């Protein structure tokens, strides 16, 4: 065969991305199962700081989203884009840089997150050098992709490609704006946004990461692979166009539904609720479009594992996009927020929708890429049923846990008192459900491993390389006038990119810009004091350990929250918080006003072994805080960066930050000694953490 490379598809890159998907998928699921075990048995971190829950959870979420789902969508995009444009990817070199660069980023994440280098912003934890690398690699991918569209040899751009375009554009915008930070050192930075701004930008990012990393690209895959798998066109092409524009236009506004009943201004909360509820319509339109593509060939559902995976995936897409708007209604959020219901929700989406789309795609692609048959259909079926059973166990247990705990938190008796004032009681109640979740996660992991075995066997049995030749379509030939014809093609791809960008920019600007002028919301007469040097050092330890994955610092404007934790948090409370620590999950109690609730000695004992003071606690031990020395050295630099960002520190405070912190630490150590601590705690990190915890809610401002 002639070796005219330009006329063949680059399928090697697709294979690489599939292998990476399988490798990192295994890692992501394994981390998930370990994290699930830790929630039921706190000992399961073996007192190793690198895998305590606060550091493991970000590792798990990043692996699942960016490593597993990320490699999945790249595999699918590289395969389908080439076929839909009838041309090889624009540049093999860029494809390779994209692949290896992305894997390198994943490795960097897998090293830095366990070591505690984290910005503590969910799904954006990675520190600034890695953020930069992500931006560069993403642009490499984008150039390669857009240029392939421009050079395409097919007049039309099929709807899947639109979904990919919007993915590229939006993820770039989200990533860049959420990562604007000022470095303090090689692996530490502070975001330019503080408190409420940071919260809003983060959840604008966080929500749209779900929308444009886990939804739009997978919808593109759905619109390409389901028609391929059942050999019929999509049910309604028109519906897919409406689905596309309505979805990307509406999605970008929905971020504030992560911050309902908090200190976020009400007009933003309401806007977030309304746009979230509107998402029902395009999401279900899309689901129906995907499912009805099977009209007339439903029998394939019985015989073809690939079709089983795809159909179930789209069904989970429908269920998750039903549940999402439901959870965005303010009163439902009041019940569900901070509980395991949210964990149930994301796993229905991640395991059901993203996972099953990925598996269906892999079962579809591997035999075609190697020109062979799948090693075992039986095993694929076994994978399907194990996976589905796993999701059912996972979802139902966490839904029950969330509802149970949510109801217990809000239960108030006739005299206006909390029925379950003891927080740990509400945790103990749901621990049995954590056992069930472990079973669910394990089943899903086992199913996945069966797939890996099946795929390895398939590849081994294949005859070897297959090269697929690209053939331009007739529609393209009909437009053979390269001069004007091509100009028009290029124009279309670019017009699209611009229109999609506009659609997502509008919502972003209207929601984010007003909040950037903070003075509107922050009442200076209620301003709090900025953190002292030692408190800041403690705060950075809190961030490093990932306490925010179990603790919120945002008392909502609800009677049950106020009764339990004190007056609702105000905007001013977090006005100097970089990054904000409002949190999204309460495995432990809210800490916004924990300061001075207990003596220093209580925290000293509690952080070393929570069970010494709170029976049945499932919080990890933090023994290493008692051996490590406080990093006084960096404090001057940190203070000067924060001063540049607008925190009213005086020059003298900046210059004396380290000395001041030392004397603060000394005072706490002295107090602990008097209370009976015999160990040498001088300059140990625990002092800084205690100093921070005792300051929470104690910095003045509106009480």
């Amino acid at each position: 065969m002639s070796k005219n490379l330009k006329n063949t598809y680059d399928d090697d890159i697709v294979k690489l991305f599939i292998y990476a998907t399988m490798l990192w998928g295994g890692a992501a699921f394994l981390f998930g199962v370990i994290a699930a075990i830790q929630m039921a048995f706190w000992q399961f971190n073996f007192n190793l700081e690198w895998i305590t829950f606060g550091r493991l959870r970000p590792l798990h979420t990043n692996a699942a989203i960016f490593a597993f789902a990320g490699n999945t969508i790249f595999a699918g995009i590289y395969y389908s884009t080439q076929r839909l444009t009838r041309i090889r990817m624009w540049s093999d070199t860029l494809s390779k840089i994209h692949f290896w660069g992305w894997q390198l980023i994943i490795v960097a994440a897998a090293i830095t997150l366990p070591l505690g280098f984290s910005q503590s912003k969910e799904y954006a934890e990675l520190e600034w050098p890695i953020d930069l690398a992500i931006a560069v690699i993403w642009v490499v991918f984008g150039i390669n992709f857009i240029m392939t569209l421009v050079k395409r040899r097919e007049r039309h751009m099929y709807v899947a490609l639109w979904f990919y375009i919007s993915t590229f554009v939006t993820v770039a915008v989200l990533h860049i704006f959420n990562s604007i930070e000022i470095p303090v050192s090689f692996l530490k930075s502070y975001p330019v946004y503080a408190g409420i701004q940071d919260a809003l930008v983060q959840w604008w990012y966080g929500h749209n990461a779900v929308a444009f990393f886990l939804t739009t690209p997978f919808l593109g895959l759905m619109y390409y692979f389901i028609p391929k798998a059942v050999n019929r066109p999509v049910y309604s092409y028109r519906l897919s166009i409406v689905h596309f524009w309505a979805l990307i236009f509406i999605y970008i506004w929905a971020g504030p539904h992560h911050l309902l009943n908090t200190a976020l201004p009400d007009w933003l909360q309401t806007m977030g609720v309304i746009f979230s509820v509107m998402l029902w319509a395009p999401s279900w339109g899309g689901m129906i479009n995907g499912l009805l593509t099977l009209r007339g060939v439903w029998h394939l559902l019985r015989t073809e594992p690939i079709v089983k995976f795809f159909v179930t995936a789209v069904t989970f897409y429908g269920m998750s996009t039903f549940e999402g708007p439901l959870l965005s209604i303010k009163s439902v959020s009041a019940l569900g927020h901070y509980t395991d219901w949210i964990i149930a929700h994301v796993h229905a989406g991640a395991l059901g929708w993203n996972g099953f789309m990925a598996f269906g795609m892999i079962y579809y692609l591997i035999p075609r890429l190697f020109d062979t048959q799948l090693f075992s259909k039986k095993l694929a079926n076994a994978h399907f049923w194990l996976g589905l059973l796993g999701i059912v166990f996972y979802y139902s247990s966490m839904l029950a846990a969330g509802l149970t705990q949510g109801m217990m938190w809000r239960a108030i008796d006739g005299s206006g008192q909390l029925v379950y004032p003891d927080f740990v009681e509400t945790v103990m109640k749901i621990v049995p459900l954590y056992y069930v979740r472990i079973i669910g996660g394990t089943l899903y992991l086992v199913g996945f491993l069966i797939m890996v075995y099946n795929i390895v066997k398939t590849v081994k049995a294949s005859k070897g390389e297959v090269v697929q030749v690209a053939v331009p379509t007739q529609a393209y030939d009909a437009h053979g006038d390269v001069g004007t014809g091509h100009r028009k093609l290029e124009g279309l791809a670019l017009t699209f990119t611009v229109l999609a960008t506009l659609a997502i920019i509008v919502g972003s600007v209207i929601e984010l810009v007003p909040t950037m002028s903070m003075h509107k919301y922050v009442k200076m007469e209620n301003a709090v004091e900025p953190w002292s040097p030692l408190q800041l050092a403690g705060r950075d330890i809190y961030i490093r350990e990932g306490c925010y994955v179990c603790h919120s610092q945002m008392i909502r404007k609800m009677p049950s929250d106020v009764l339990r934790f004190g007056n609702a948090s105000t905007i001013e409370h977090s006005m100097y918080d970089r990054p904000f620590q409002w949190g999204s999950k309460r495995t432990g109690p809210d800490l916004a006003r924990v300061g001075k609730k207990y003596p220093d000695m209580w925290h000293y004992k509690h952080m070393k072994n929570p069970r010494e003071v709170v029976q049945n606690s499932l919080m990890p031990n933090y023994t290493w805080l008692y051996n490590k020395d406080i990093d006084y050295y960096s404090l001057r630099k940190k203070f000067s960066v924060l001063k540049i960002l607008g925190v009213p520190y005086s020059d003298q405070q900046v210059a004396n930050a380290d000395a001041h912190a030392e004397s603060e630490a000394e005072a706490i150590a002295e107090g602990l000694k008097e209370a009976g601590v015999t160990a040498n705690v001088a300059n140990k990190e625990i002092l800084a953490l205690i100093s921070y915890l005792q300051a929470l809610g104690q910095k003045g401002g509106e009480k």
Partner: protein
Amino acid sequence: MKQEGLKYFTHPELMAIAFTLFMVTFVGIIFWTFRKSAKKEYEQVAQAPLQEETLHGQN
């Protein structure tokens, strides 16, 4: 009480703009998508994934 409720509802005009924009965009898309002349084109595009006339070859 009413004052309290509206205190943080600082930008009703933005909400109005948002919905106007949404309605205009949405109605525009519907009209554009369902214009008659596009029917044939859509039928063609919808076939795109299915008509890959690729040649298979062994290295």
